[in-house]
Structure formats: C-alpha cells, structure tokens
C-alpha cells in the first residue's frame, strides 16, 4: 500500500514540477505577480511529496518488504537496521530518489527563505530549478522506478554489497548528493540572471551561500569516500583517480573556483560573465558525473550500448541542460558588463589566477576521464588513463596554485604595491623554505616530494597566519588591541584563513604519506617477531569469530616500539549472504603515524601472509579537509548572509552596511 503511495507521490511531484517550471516563468516575463507567486507553494509541495515518497521507500527497507523489487534485490532481513536504512540509497533507484529529494529540498529552501529576493528573480530561479526537477523525476519514474512490486515476493532478499555495510560509505552518498545537487542552485541563479541580463553584488550575495553549502557538503562527501577507501580496501590507498572519484572532483574544483569568483562579483562588481559561466559549468560537471556513474558507460562503451535506456535519458538531460544553458549564455553574456577598475597587481588579479588554475585543473581531470571513451568511439581502440597520468598532468597546477595562494590572498583590492603588500609574507617564506631544507637534510635518500610538500604546506599555513597577523595589526598596536581586532574580524575572514590552512594541512598529509610510507609484506609465523621501521611486529594468534551477518578470521598482532605497545586485530570477513570476502584492516591511528596491519591467507608453510604499513601523518589529509569544510562553514555564517541581503535598489556603492 505505502509503496503505491510513494509511487503516487512521485508522479504528483512530477506534475507539480511541470506547473512550477512553466507558470512562474511566464509570470516573470509578463510581470504577473500571482503567477510568479505560484512558485513558492509548488516548491514546498514538491518537497513534501518527495519526503513522503522517500519515507515510503525507507519504510519498505526497514520492515524488509520483499514484495518491493528494489528491497528484494538490495536488502536482507538479517542486515543491521542502520544498513537497512542506508541501503535505501545504496542502489541506483533509491539513490536517484534521494537525488530528487535533495533537489526539492534546495528548491523549497529558496522558496521559503527567499523572501528578500526580488519576486521576478525568485520566480525564475524556482522555475529553472523545477525544470531540472521535471527531467530527473521523469528519469526516476520512467527508467528507474524504485516502487515496482514483485509477485510472488521472495522469502528473503539478496542483501547489500558487504562493502557498503560500513558507516563511512553509508553516509558518503548523501553528502556527495547535497554537493552535486546544491550546485543546481547556482545554475538556476545563473540562468535567471542571464534571462534578466543582470548580475550585481546582491545576486552574488544570494548565490554564494548556496554554493558554499554545496561545496562544504561536497568536500565532506569526497573526504568520507577517500577515508573509507583508506581504511576499508586494505592497502591504505586514499585516492585512485578512478573515473567515479574524478566525477566528484571536477564539480569540486569548479565549485571552488566559483566560490572565489563570486567574491569578486560581490565585492568588486566585475568578473560577472565568467562567474555565471562557472556556475553553469559547476552544475554541468555534476550532471556529467551523474551520467558517468549512472549510465554504466565507464565499464565500457559496449555495456552502455547494451542497456542504453538510462544512459540515453541522462545524456539527453545533459545535452538539454548544458547545451541550453551555454546557448543562452552566448546570447546574453555580453549584457553582463563589468563596471569596476583594478590594476594588474590586485586581489582581483589574484582571484583570476586562482580561477584560471582551478578551471584548467578541472579540465585536465575531465579530459583524462573521458579520453578512453573518446578513443574508443573514434578509433575503436581501448586505452587507459590512470593515476600515473593524473599525478603527472594535474599536480603541477596545484603546485603553482599553492605557490601563488598566500600572495593572492594578502593583496588588497583594486591596486597594490607588490613590495609593500607581501612584506608580511617574507617571514613565512623564509621559515617554510628553512623547514623544507631541514626535512631534506634529515631524510635519508627519500624523494623530493617530502621536502617540497613541507615547504608548500607551511608556506600556505604560515602565509594565512601572516595575513591574519596583518589584519590584527599584530606588533603594531598593543597585544590586547590585536586580540580585540582578531575577535572582531568578520567570520568570512576567519573562514578564508581556516580553509586555506586546511588546504595546507591536506597537502602536508599527502606529501608526507606519499614520500615516507613504509610497507612490509611477508609470511608471518606465529610468535616470530620482525622489524618494520622501528616497530617490532609479532603475529600472536588467528582465530575464527562470528559476526551478526558474517564470519571472520581474526588475527592478533602486537607491535612495540620503545615504551609504545599496541595490539592490533586485522580481520578477513566472509559475508553469509553474498559469500564475498572483505578485509578489515587493523589501524592504530595517530597524529604522527598510522600503523596499518592487514591479514592475508594461510600459507603452505603454516604461517599467514601479513601486510604492514607505517603511514606517517596520513590523517592530516582528512584533518585538512575537515578544517577546509569548517572554514566554509564559518564563511557561511558570516554576518552579511544572516542579515537581510540588501534590496536591489540600494546596491552598488554603499553595499557594505547591510542593515
């Protein structure tokens, strides 16, 4: 019964989305207020309907109703309740329902909290948002219906992929989706701006928080996925340049660029057309990511051709959205004129460089990701593009970005004297080069990666702190005065410093673990000790244990170094339903190193294969991304977004006091 209710709800949501897409747009063109006003209730009703549908599906999973085909294919009555719930989006149909739910959530949020938006702009934004909704609801209903019944219902389900039965991965998709779909808001605002032929500081002030919210979520989602890969897959890799990862990384890079260019629009009323283009591109990459992941085109072009229905549908959405948006852009972008002047050495120029590097980096990832498809389509040959390519082609842009970042961030707006502006940075530069040199002299025959990474990361972090010091007029006025100034700095300034420090920390973690990781693979005999990187390891026992829905071989490995003594329990699990083995690495996490132990198979001579890694500073990769996301959150709660955005009439010059 409730499955039919859910079915009914999504069909109704589609009909309402069509109304929301058409009526308010006509209203905005003609200036009919009541037609425009219709956008608000329709957006809200859509959200209610999709919550209803999502609840219905969740209920079916929780009570294990195997008469619903999706539940039978992806769940099992023995599964822990948490994973029954997360199993709702652990499959194609359910995840597309979640996609639609989040889309409706963003639309309803603009409808509900957008009272300070000019009515015509709000109507157009919500109308564009509803067009995206129509496309994806139709996709859901006609190609990926989650509510199909199965008759007769099987006695039990086929279970969820064991790898998904993990908290890190269970919550990875919702974060990613909030990020992907959140960028639709920037897209809708961009299209509305093109239709109106007008972008101003107020527009940027509305777009930036939505993009920021999406970016924070995307940052967290990507981090969760990478952290999951690190501890779950059993060799401690954390980024694989896999097409699926790339398809979340491209929107992230573009959204990062967009966040920075939107600041220029807001504060300096220039870079408008470019910002609108970035908003379109950021969401386009989200759509391309969805297409790449959902169409199966990855496995091979042939897999796509064998079951083309879903792929063709998304490809059509993709073509319509991106093609339509870019056509509109080419027709209207010249309306978006910039008014302000700035000199070559200025914050504006710094942000242009930031945008250039991030966009080119995103383009490199894009070309690398689709290259195998391009080659297969054009010549029929198969090529691979993997980590070695991306390491080589992508990293240089990030190195240049890291070098330029502290300078661009400290330059004043409009025009600057380079010598004077970067004066506070000389200390940071000297210190970071010294740190790099120190590390270089200490390491024995290691790679240059370590020293370079240390120099770059400390340059970014110390540079951000120097920026903060300048803002507080540290050592120019009494300390108490500096502290007061620090406390009174706008939250967005704190957000900027934190986000940049986070990037520095992530770069530090990446280069440290890449340069200095130590690995040991061997057959360990029980009770026999061996030495890896100063730690003495001993395999004590291996025993069989039973989990709720799996059985497991669990080893006990002791590791000692000086006074430090660890006991680690790596496991090999076999899940009862799927009979798929998974490894559960035992990791002793720490700020300076992770000790990472994996249990392998029984060997002929009675020992067990054991893999041991010492991974220095690896956790800083994710501490860094968390700090980045937290910086974003600080910016999101900046005062200027909380107080009413200025009305359009009062915008340009006196925009600062926004009461």
């Amino acid at each position, binding site marked *: 019964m409730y499955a039919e209710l859910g079915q009914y709800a999504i069909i109704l949501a589609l009909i309402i989305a069509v109304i929301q897409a058409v009526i308010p747009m006509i209203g905005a063109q003609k200036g009919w207020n009541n037609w425009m006003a219709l956008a608000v209730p329709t957006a809200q009703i859509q959200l209610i309907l999709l919550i209803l549908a999502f609840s219905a599906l969740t209920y079916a999973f929780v009570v294990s109703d195997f008469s619903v085909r999706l539940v039978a294919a992806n769940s099992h009555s023995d599964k822990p309740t948490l994973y029954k719930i997360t199993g709702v989006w652990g499959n194609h149909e359910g995840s597309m329902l979640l996609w639609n739910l989040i889309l409706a959530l963003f639309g309803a949020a603009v409808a509900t909290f957008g009272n300070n938006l000019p009515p015509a702009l709000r109507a157009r934004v919500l109308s564009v948002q509803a067009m995206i909704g129509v496309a994806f609801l139709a996709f859901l209903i006609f190609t990926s219906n989650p509510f199909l019944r199965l008759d007769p219902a099987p006695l039990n389900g086929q279970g969820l992929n064991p790898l998904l039965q993990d908290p890190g991965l269970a919550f990875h998709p919702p974060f990613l989706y909030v990020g992907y779909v959140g960028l639709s808001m920037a897209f809708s605002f961009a299209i509305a701006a093109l239709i109106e032929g007008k972008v101003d500081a107020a527009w940027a002030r509305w777009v930036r928080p939505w993009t920021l919210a999406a970016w924070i979520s995307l940052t967290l989602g990507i981090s969760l996925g990478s952290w999951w890969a690190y501890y779950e897959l059993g060799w401690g890799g954390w980024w694989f340049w896999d097409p*699926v990862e790339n398809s979340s990384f491209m929107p992230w890079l573009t959204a990062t660029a967009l966040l920075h260019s939107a600041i220029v629009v807001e504060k300096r009323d220039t870079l408008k057309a470019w910002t609108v283009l970035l908003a379109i591109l950021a969401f386009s990459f989200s759509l391309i990511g969805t297409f790449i992941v959902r169409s199966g085109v990855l496995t091979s072009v042939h897999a796509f051709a064998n079951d083309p229905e879903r792929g063709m549908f998304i490809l059509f959405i993709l073509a319509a959205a991106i093609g339509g948006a870019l056509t509109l852009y080419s027709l209207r972008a010249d309306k978006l004129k910039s008014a302000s002047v700035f000199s070559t050495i200025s914050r*504006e120029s710094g942000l*242009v460089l930031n945008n250039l590097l991030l966009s080119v980096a995103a383009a490199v990832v894009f070309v690398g990701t689709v290259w195998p498809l391009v080659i297969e389509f054009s010549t029929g040959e198969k*090529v691979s593009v*993997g980590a070695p390519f991306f390491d080589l082609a992508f990293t240089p842009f990030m190195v240049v970005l890291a070098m330029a970042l502290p300078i661009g961030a400290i330059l004043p707006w409009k025009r600057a004297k380079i010598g004077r502006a970067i004066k506070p940075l000389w200390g940071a530069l000297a210190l970071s080069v010294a740190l790099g040199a120190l590390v270089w002299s200490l390491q024995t025959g290691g790679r240059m990666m370590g020293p370079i990474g240390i120099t770059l990361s400390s340059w970014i972090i110390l540079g951000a702190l120097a920026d903060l010091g300048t803002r507080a007029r540290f050592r120019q006025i009494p300390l108490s005065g500096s502290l007061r100034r620090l406390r009174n700095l706008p939250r967005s300034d704190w957000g900027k410093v934190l986000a940049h420090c986070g990037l520095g920390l992530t770069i530090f973690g990446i280069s440290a673990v890449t340069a200095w990781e130590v690995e040991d693979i061997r057959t360990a005999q029980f009770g026999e000790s061996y030495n890896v990187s100063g730690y003495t390891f001993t395999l004590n026992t291996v025993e069989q244990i039973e989990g709720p829905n799996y059985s497991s071989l669990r080893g006990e490995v002791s590791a000692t170094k000086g006074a430090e003594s660890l006991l680690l329990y790596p496991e090999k699990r076999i899940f009862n339903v799927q009979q798929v083995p998974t490894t559960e690495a035992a990791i002793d996490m720490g700020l300076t190193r992770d000790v990472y132990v994996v249990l392998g*198979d029984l060997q002929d001579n009675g020992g067990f*294969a054991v893999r041991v890694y010492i991974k220095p500073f690896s956790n800083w990769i994710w501490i860094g991304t968390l700090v980045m996301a937290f910086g974003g959150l600080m910016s999101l709660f900046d005062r200027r977004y909380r107080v009413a955005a200025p009305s359009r009439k009062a915008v340009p010059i006196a925009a600062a006091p926004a009461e």
Partner: protein
Amino acid sequence: MRYILVFLAFASAAFAVEPSEMLDDPVLEARARELSKGLRCLVCLNENIDDSNAGLAADLRILVRERLTEGDTDVEVVQYVVDRYGEFVLLKPTFSAGNYILWFSGPLLLIFGGIGAMVFIRRRSKAEPVLGLSDEEQEKVAKLLQD
C-alpha cells in the same frame, strides 16, 4: 558511490602482492613493484596490478617478475606486456600522436586561458570607471525631461 564498489569488490578480497610471489632480490622486487603500478589489471576498472587481487593481475605480476629475473630492462618488460595485451594495459597513455590532445590540453588551456586573463586584466586596469547611468535610467531621465 555504488559503482566504485562493483570494481572494488575485485580488490577487496584479500591483498594483492602475495609473499610467495615476491623476489628475493630487494632491488629487483622494488623495480617490479614500481612497474606494476603503471600496468592495468585488465579485468578491473582502472586498477593497477599491484593493488589488484584478481587472478589475472597475479599472473601479470609474476610475468613482470619473470622478465626482470631474465634480465630485461624496465622498458623491455613494459614493451613485452604491451606486445601481448595492447596499450590498454598502460595506465599512463603513450606520448604519441594519437594522445597529443590528452597530453597537451592542460598546457594549451593554461596558455590560452592565461592570455585571455591577461587581456581581461589589462582592459580592466585601463578602463574608465563607469559612472554614467544605465540604459533604463537614461530612459527614465529622458521621460522626466519630456514631461
């Protein structure tokens, strides 16, 4: 996301390089590991044979080690594998005419984008600040003046 798992399912089972496969000579073994990281496991999605625990990846790892013990150079080993399995096994595509777009798109975009950005910044630094009225406002003024 879900699809990552489909392929990771291959990888997750146990671990890739087994102690029994490893060479006694640490220098040769290190070369084998390095080479393995650039070779694709053919039945996996974008995974190298060093990380994969698919059977075929194990065969390839052993093959690489056999060639190394025979005295092949790194280039010869890779060529040997490519001759048998095609360029598909290379995770880093060759630097050849067919792949120029792939290799050069980044640098070219940077150059063209950089030129575009320079032109834009130059124009902004020379432009007069627009202090005049917008078209709309001018229309209004004209209307007011007429009245």
